[in-house]
């Protein structure tokens, strides 16, 4: 057993992070938030993601893909979550190999997930029944939303990739909180020297690490129950992480200028994707009923 990233996986993660810092760094993120007609899908970035293999990651090399697996896709989506990358990333990734142009990022694919559709107007192809779709004023300024009357069933892989994004966002808000706590001074010392602030930050890290174990393991096993567990823990890490990050930032955290609210709103939105928390908990409870006592690995 070697439940750690391989050198190739580390390199992949570093590569995706570097690409996103270069192409979707903080300035680009803020420009997107403050654009007069926001949100707007950046087609050039989308094609660049396609060229980098973001969408074709799990497509076999014989089909023009990168030929990697779920663990690698999870690492890429974790980075997307960190960077708050916008667009129907999961839907397009899942459409690679099935919808022409999705793999290369030339075609933008949206999909019905539950009773919501993200990026309906921007998409070239929409998967699922969007009859009667009604636009909403989306809480997340970077993700346009439509409500649809007929719910689509959840897809476990989509749920896992969403959990990976939540994990990346949770790790990022923990970093932002720690950075702020190290530098912001009150009462003559950095606020991070106060136990009350320290303990908020350490609990954030604990939630991130527990979620990381669950998300990475689910990527390796692809087991629906592992994915359900990963979703619950990653949602918790992202939502509570963003809240605690906001708290550590104090009044600054409550302003539009800080990035914290963007993480929080996206985390709320992602938590609505796929299986609901209630459904995941019911499935995991059912597993307890059926499981025989005895060895498990």
């Amino acid at each position, binding site marked *: *057993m*070697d*439940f*750690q990233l391989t050198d190739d996986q580390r390199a992949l993660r570093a590569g995706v992070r570097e690409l996103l810092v270069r192409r979707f760094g903080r300035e680009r993120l803020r420009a997107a938030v403050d654009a007069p007609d926001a949100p707007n899908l950046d087609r050039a970035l989308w094609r660049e993601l396609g060229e980098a293999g973001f969408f074709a990651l799990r497509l076999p090399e014989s089909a023009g893909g990168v030929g990697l697996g779920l663990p690698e896709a999870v690492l890429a989506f974790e980075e997307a979550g960190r960077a708050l990358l916008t667009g129907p990333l999961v839907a397009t990734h899942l459409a690679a190999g099935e919808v022409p142009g999705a793999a290369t990022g030339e075609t933008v694919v949206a999909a019905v997930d539950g009773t919501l559709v993200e990026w309906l107007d921007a998409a070239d192809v929409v998967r699922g029944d969007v009859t009667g779709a009604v636009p909403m004023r989306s809480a997340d300024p970077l993700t346009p939303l439509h409500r649809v009357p007929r719910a689509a069933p959840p897809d476990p892989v989509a749920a896992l990739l969403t959990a990976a994004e939540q994990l990346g966002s949770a790790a990022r808000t923990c970093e932002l909180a720690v950075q702020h706590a190290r530098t912001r001074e009150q009462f003559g010392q950095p606020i991070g020297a106060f136990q009350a602030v320290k303990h908020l930050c350490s609990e954030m890290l604990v939630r991130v690490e527990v979620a990381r174990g669950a998300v990475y393991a689910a990527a390796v096993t692809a087991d629906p129950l592992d994915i359900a567990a990963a979703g619950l823990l990653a949602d918790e890490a992202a939502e509570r992480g963003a809240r605690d990050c906001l708290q550590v930032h104090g009044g600054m955290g409550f302003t539009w200028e800080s990035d914290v609210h963007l993480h929080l709103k996206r985390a709320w939105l992602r938590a609505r994707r796929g299986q609901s928390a209630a459904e*995941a*908990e019911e499935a995991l409870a059912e597993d307890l009923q059926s499981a025989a006592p005895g060895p498990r690995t």
Partner: protein
Amino acid sequence: MDLSYTPEEEDFRGRLREWLAKVLPGLPPKPSPDDWPGRRAYDLGWQRTLYDAGYAGLHWPIDAGGRGATPTQHLIFLEETENAGAPYVGANFVGLLHAGPTIAAEGSAEQRARWLPPVLRGEEVWCQGFSEPDAGSDLAALRTRAWRDGDDYVVSGSKIWTSHAEVADWCELLVRTDAKAPKHRGISWLAMPMDAPGITVRPLRTLAGSTEFAEVFLDEVRVPVANRVGAENDGWRVTMVTLSFERGTAFVGEVVACRRVLGELAREARKNGRWDDAVLRRGLGRLNAEFRALWRLTQWNVSESERAGGVPGIGGSVFKLRYSRARQELYDAAAEVLGPEALDLDSRWTLDRLSSLSYTIAAGTSQIQRNIVAERILGLPKGR
């Protein structure tokens, strides 16, 4: 990232499983929690059984008498013994997980030869003389002092929360050998024989009603200078070496046990009709997610330490923070399932619920663990 086990590891698991199936039915019944001599005999008997089968000190280095097993093999050992319902490490806890590894890492050849084999063979029990009434979470503030008199240290002071003190042969004792040095620097690590004159052991009753630990009073107890492990006044460093090892695997078996308990609880709820309560049912589902994730985090930490050549990382504090809380939530959920029975002191569930309260306190409180995570992992400044 790989969660599969190698053929060698699977082979090890298979042989261990076979052996456990053969040996466990012949074990004597477990003694009652208050019967310390009985517990000592039972735990030493199990240790001897492990020794005879070649499983004693599995993860200890070979030159310390161990088997030099990899962290993954040790993980498999803990998982399989727990799943099979084998005895826990019990009274051998301090000797096997704490004092033994410290002596193995820092002791002289004579010290290793004197103290390590009896631990592995199940002949001697150790207890831990670290905490003091005025220095619990602030361990380095300890005041028990030791001064030289010829070839002996003379030790006076008191220790508290000392498990197994009544039946221990040896105590790993932290003493202050330099009162003027900064508090982390004047400490030494001694092996004190528990039958030395001047030692008084007073059992302490826990909130569960049993005498789980004791207070130990030391009145001019003579301990040979030769019993000091590591240099004089270097005891804090010696202790820290061991604590990191302890946190690495101390709770592996318990996570496995909690997963089993959760399954039992679900079956109990189905039997008594509480399963129809959706809130309770979903709570159990969430605990399933929790313990699955804690098992994955365990596998992550073990793999990390395997890559580092067996040296555990500081992720132990992260794990302990979450596990100690989850364990309490598990037994609170049990009380919901059981209803009035949760108030019956003759119910195993009630006693386990009460004992779960110690997990956020023992081996470093959650508050101290959060400071460790914040300062040593996240790099936040020290302060108050």
